[in-house]
């Protein structure tokens, strides 16, 4: 089980952006969604998630507003901004380059 700190630097940002590209959601469901999408392989703790969200918001890649959640409570919903969409594209491309490069070395010939 990978702990988020073990994730390659900046990967968490990429995951958050990717998940938010599906629909606006709050912190809890972002964590849940990452778990589901990674088939329970990645578990993002709130200790890393919230600072990351605040940083992304400060950078202007995501936006936040308060709304009523599925269990009828007020929750902070994050949404991808257009800058965030652009960032997601470049980050994804970069990630693909990086992971394929690493695969080339790690996979036996």
């Amino acid at each position: 089980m990978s702990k988020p700190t073990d994730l390659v630097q900046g990967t968490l940002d990429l995951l958050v952006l990717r998940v938010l590209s599906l629909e606006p959601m709050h912190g809890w469901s972002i964590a849940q969604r990452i778990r589901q999408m990674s088939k329970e392989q990645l578990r993002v703790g709130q200790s890393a998630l919230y600072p990351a969200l605040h940083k992304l918001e400060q950078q202007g890649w995501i936006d936040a507003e308060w709304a009523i959640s599925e269990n009828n409570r007020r929750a902070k919903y994050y949404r991808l901004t257009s800058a965030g969409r652009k960032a997601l594209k470049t980050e994804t491309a970069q990630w693909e380059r990086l992971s394929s490069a690493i695969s080339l070395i790690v996979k036996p010939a």
Partner: protein
Amino acid sequence: MRWTRTFRLRLRSLFRRRRVEQQLADELQYHLERLIDDLIAAGATPQDARYAALREMGAIEQRKEECRDARGLRLFFALGRDLRYSVRQLLRYPVFAAAAVLTLAMGIGPNATIATVISCVFRPLPVADADRLTVLATTVSANPRIWQRLAYPDYQDYKSSTAPFSDMAVWDLNSVGLTADGRTDRVISTVVSGNYFSTLHLDPAAGRLILPSDGELGGTRPIVVLSHSYWTRRFGASSSAVGREVRIDGRPFTVVGVAQEGFHGTFRLLSSEVYLPLELFQSRARLSNRDVLSVRVIGRLKPEFALDEARASIDAVAKRLERDHPTTNAGRRVRVYSERLARPEPQTASQGPALAAVFLMLVGAILLIACANVLGLFLARGLGRGREMTIRRSLGASRWDLVRLCVLEALVIAFLGASAGAIAGVVVARALASVAVAPGFPLFLELRLDWGTQTYVAILMVVSTLLIGLLPAIRASRVDPRSDLSDGKASTDGRQRHLIRKGLAAAQIAGSMVLLVVCGLFIRSVQSLQSVDLGFDATRVLLASMDPGAVGYDVGRTRAFYEVLDATVEALPGVESAAASVFVPFGTGNSTPYIAAEGQAPPSSTTGVLADRHLVTGDYFRTIGTPLLRGRTFSSVDTQGSAKVAVVNEALAARLWPGDDPLGRRFRSSSDPDSTFEVIGIVQDARYRRDEIGGSAVPRYFASLDQFSAAARTLHVRSRTRTAETLTSTVTETIRRLDSAVPVYDVYTLERQINDSGSGFGGAKGAAMMTGVLGMLALTLAVVGTYGVLSFTVRARTREIGIRMAFGLAPRRVFRMLLRETWNIALFGVAIGLAASIATGKVLEGFLFGVPPYDPVTLLGVVVIMGAVSTLVGVFPARTASRLNPIETLRYE
């Protein structure tokens, strides 16, 4: 824009901090609740689920802090906290804070004063694209002098055949009498060409300005443009003033408009009140004479040309003119200056900025001394705070946190000190400007705390913050959190700490010494100026100037007026004699034509001898006390119709007729080309200008006011008593009784004219006074600083001294030991100060008179002062130490 958004978010986090904090808490709370729900759904009891969730969440406060960090605001909040803390700290030690702020204000104040004055003198003209304006000035080869005027025909040639200038205009200053509503003011006027205002890109505030369509030289229609300030002061800014008639020098003129507010003419230091067509005030003959430097020229550069290109282009034309007009233009060149640097006159373009730099350096030294004092205070307090810093370190403050705290404290002090200093500095500058009334020169300085000065003070504030805060900060950052917090102290302090303190004291002594030496050099300059035999007797002479021309007197009425006046004044009790002259020794006005002995080529700038021309009445030499060596002075036989006569000085006689008897010889002058002067008398050489002092007298001739009339004259009245001032009211009254409409001005003694005016010794005297005040300020600061260091040293060494005394060191020897220490510091400071003083003196050499920059009297005097002061300062702490009771000091520990 992303950064605007980021900025907005930051602002939101800053100013709606409570809300942001609340939201952060809510968000994490929501997460916690979902976690609990999840665990309950998985089968845990609510109690267990809550504990498990809280465990997983970890330290929520730490999470919040991380989120705040992510928003990049931690530093900001920490700064705010530190700032509040520093202010609280300073309030807890009000005496320390007040001393530090006051000391710094004393250091910044003089800087603000000097910066205000400099900024006022070199502020751009209030016109569009002022940086494109240039000033032209004439030079002649083999003569170091720079003339601020050009020959009008030269100007026309430069204007028509140089590409880099978009326009050039001519102007000059003139005093006129303006009569309106039965009252006559004597005002400074600028006589201008038609394109003067258009070259400057100025618009009228009311009516219209003098326009190119009025004529190249402003035209012959009697029109006048008022300055905005004069319009406001004299006519209450009434729009009906435009179009009305006023009298100027007795002639009717129509007010056509008002110049833009804030524009005071193109001569800095004077405020021009009215603008008149140049053509009405200068004769065509004079203007068309290529040999007469008749007009001041201001030029505007096209945006695409640099100053160097303009210079090259002007040079090319000058060379052509030299070929085309060899009799007048041989060796004549024209220099181009940036208008801002050529203030007040192009002659000072090379000196002004240098003098400004020297004064900024001197007041900078005062600031350094003040900073050293405040630093001393901070360091002394820092000792007491070592414990506090250690505790902070142990409790988790980073080195950087401590450094920030120290620098912030310094910043608070520096900010308060700089604000107080800047305000006080400008107030002092204004007071100085109102006190420094130069006789015969209505000095105009618009002193205000402008942007330039504010920026300069802000820079000084930052510099002082660093000077004051950095060393304590470095100290604080070196605190070892593991060090012993117990009170045990070494008996003696580190050597290095004392070295820094002593170094500071020595630097202060050195700095104040430089100022005192500069002051001394200026005092000695004034002394040597005043000790020079001027060749006339300035005591007991009262001057009174008047201008019947301002109310329209013609030549005949003028002569009659002065004849009656002369007789009436001479009949006054207490008056020994009276005479009139157009110019005053060491005054601003002068006339310097070229002369040539009869039989030589007609005098021109290339063939003649440059001479001073004076117009006086017959009693002038007796009144001013210049001995007539041979021949006679003017008398009633010399009238307008008779042959022109002159009295010459020895220098002129020796120059024109070396070895021959000049009496009865004749010469010609370029200022009166139609006359030939016969020499009827020879007077002893006298000094009428500053540049004659220390050198030889210039050739000078005196012509008769009966033969060459001038309306504006200065009456010289020799009193029978030592105090010529007592005649002031009687003389003024006498003139008023003759005609109360005639403006009378500049009534003061000849001694004042010489000692206080800008063309006399006023500059050196002013500099001596100013550096004297600065020097005293610096010395006071240095004394306080040195005293502080010494008494601190004694306090820090109490235990050591106690032990020494317990072992039998006599109090007398303790006293001597400490006094010697003071002397060591002083000696070190004086040595550095001597070197710095001589270097500064070298820079100022051009401003000194008859004093070498290493003047031994000054240096010795200052060294003695410094020795005496440092001894005095050292005696008290040394005496305190020698009276210590060794038992008590040891028990105290």
